[in-house]
């Protein structure tokens, strides 16, 4: 009888482990939201190439940044400085190649270099001090945001700058393909594949999970956790700069105001995608569908007669739901660790 009950509980555990794969719940959220908006947005052509391109373009511009933000969250850190790095990189390219008419390639390199530097600073401060990354990147968010505005005024006497990129740059970063899909969508899809291989197939992906799962043990296992975190912060800033570059070249202008909404959008995408806020767990496909879900709710609302303000309510509910699902997953694993199942069996 004893062995029977353990078998049963084992079976139960394993089944729950499989059901609660975060990408499955993120896919489920995506499908539900898609169906709802298809019904309410039918009259305004939500289900059309044009409709799809609207939310997919939006998803790409958030998703490009949500991936590395997700990596950092899995590794146990947070980066909210992206809200300032996006306009900072857009302005850097705009001022250098637009206002000062430097060659585009040079502007691109300097822009990516600037982002690299911000990521490096974030990473160094977080790994060298015990200050939580939320506070460190909050500081760099404001510092970079303030610096962007100041320098923009200083150099160009304006907070906006126009930039018309040459054709090759347009094709790469800022054109529209197949009736509405921007270049950034292809960057996003390509990075989805590359980042998938990175996180789930490469040895480095394992390091990310281990670092967020148990920092001390990861360090003892010989994983260079500090260097890994610094690299992830740099990756996050550089990806944000790529999104900024796409934005300037697409719209021929850059603006310097800090994008606070971006911070929330990336975090929502990552959490709805099933990444644990406490780190150590998450999937790339989950983040992918989390971003798409957010994008549909944010953009699809315009295709319906629903009040636009309600989209935030939907996102709030979705986020809570996601946190509950993620939380139940986490508690499942931590509960089993400490319970002394064998002993109980013996007593009964």
């Amino acid at each position, binding site marked *: 009888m004893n062995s029977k009950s353990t078998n049963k509980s084992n079976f139960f*555990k*394993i089944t729950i*482990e499989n059901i609660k794969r975060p990408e499955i719940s993120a896919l489920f959220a995506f499908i539900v939201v898609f169906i709802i908006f298809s019904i309410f947005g039918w009259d305004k052509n939500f289900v059309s190439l044009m409709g799809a391109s609207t939310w997919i373009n939006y998803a790409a511009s958030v998703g490009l940044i949500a991936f590395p933000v997700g990596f950092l969250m899995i590794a146990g850190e947070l980066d909210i400085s992206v809200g300032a790095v996006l306009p900072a990189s857009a302005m850097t390219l705009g001022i250098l190649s637009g206002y000062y008419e430097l060659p585009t390639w040079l502007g691109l390199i300097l822009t990516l270099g600037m982002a690299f530097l911000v990521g490096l600073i974030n990473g160094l401060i977080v790994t060298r001090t015990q200050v939580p990354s939320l506070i460190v990147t909050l500081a760099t968010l404001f510092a970079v945001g303030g610096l962007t505005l100041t320098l923009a005024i200083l150099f160009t006497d304006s907070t906006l700058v126009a930039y018309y990129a040459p054709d090759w740059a347009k094709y790469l970063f800022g054109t529209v393909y197949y009736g509405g899909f921007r270049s950034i969508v292809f960057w996003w899809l390509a990075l989805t594949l590359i980042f998938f*291989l990175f996180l789930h*197939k*490469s*040895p480095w*992906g*394992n*390091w990310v*999970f*281990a670092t967020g*799962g*148990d920092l*001390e*043990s*990861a*360090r*003892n*296992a*010989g*994983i260079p956790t500090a260097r890994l975190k610094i690299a992830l912060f740099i990756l996050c800033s550089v990806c944000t700069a790529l999104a900024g570059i796409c934005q300037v070249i697409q719209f021929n202008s850059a603006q310097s105001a800090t994008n606070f909404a971006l911070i929330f959008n990336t975090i929502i995408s990552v959490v709805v995608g099933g990444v*644990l806020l406490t780190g*150590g*767990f998450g999937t790339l496909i989950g983040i992918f569908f989390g971003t798409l879900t957010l994008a549909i709710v944010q953009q699809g609302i315009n295709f319906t007669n629903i009040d636009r303000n309600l989209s935030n309510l939907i996102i709030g509910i979705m986020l809570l739901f996601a946190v509950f699902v993620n939380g139940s997953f*986490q508690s*499942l*694993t*931590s509960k*089993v*660790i*400490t*319970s*002394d*199942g*064998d*002993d109980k069996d*013996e007593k009964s």
Partner: protein
Amino acid sequence: MSENKTILELQGVHKSYGNIHALRDINLKVNEGEVLCLLGDNGAGKSTLIKILAGVHTPTKGQIFLDGKPKSFNRPKEAQELGIATVHQFGGTFPLMSIGRSFFAGVEPTIGWGPFRFFDRKTANRIAVESVQNFGITRIDDGDRKVGGLSGGERQSLAIARAVYFGARVLILDEPTAALGVKQSAHVLRIVNEAKKRGLAVIFITHQVMHALAVGDHFAVLIRGSVAADFKKGEKTREEITDLMAGGEDMSALEANIHA
């Protein structure tokens, strides 16, 4: 037992932080195929000693000998490369990772070449499951399962099996049974015995005298940073050891005090 080769030896090891002397003149020896139990109350200097052996700290004075040769390790990695592995209470395993991935964290096996070197899940899972099963934990049979789904004893066993697989010759177990139930502790103690049979030198840190007596060959009691007693199996009774750990005071006198 004494004819066994000495693997690790400490001679006159001293560690101080400014004016605070955490360890004074520690002389200890651990032979292959032998379990050295390090007993001591909280704050006796056990953790400092582990950290010195694991390469986290370097001693202020004194020498560490490995196979009779003086060695100094400045980083945990150097100690690991010399075959000294430390397993902390729940450390070394990652609850939200699969057994195979957790086992190979930091030393992932790969297939492919150049930038296309991918984590070899099948090999990792197979070796991980085999290694734990060799230690008698047959309930672990699927390397894709999450470590968090295992019991505390099984996790501890997984961590020990991991250390042994990666070539540990000296196994430092930091309070491996502290948070475990009776049956799971027995699990871990069996694995300690198994490691000893394989010729490993085991340093078993605990404050549970019963667990120490169950597997230990050699005992050392730390009090306020010094080795207060150093004796072999059978030389002292459980009561004597408990008294020693309580700082040399008579435990029965303490008990009398409590009930007074």
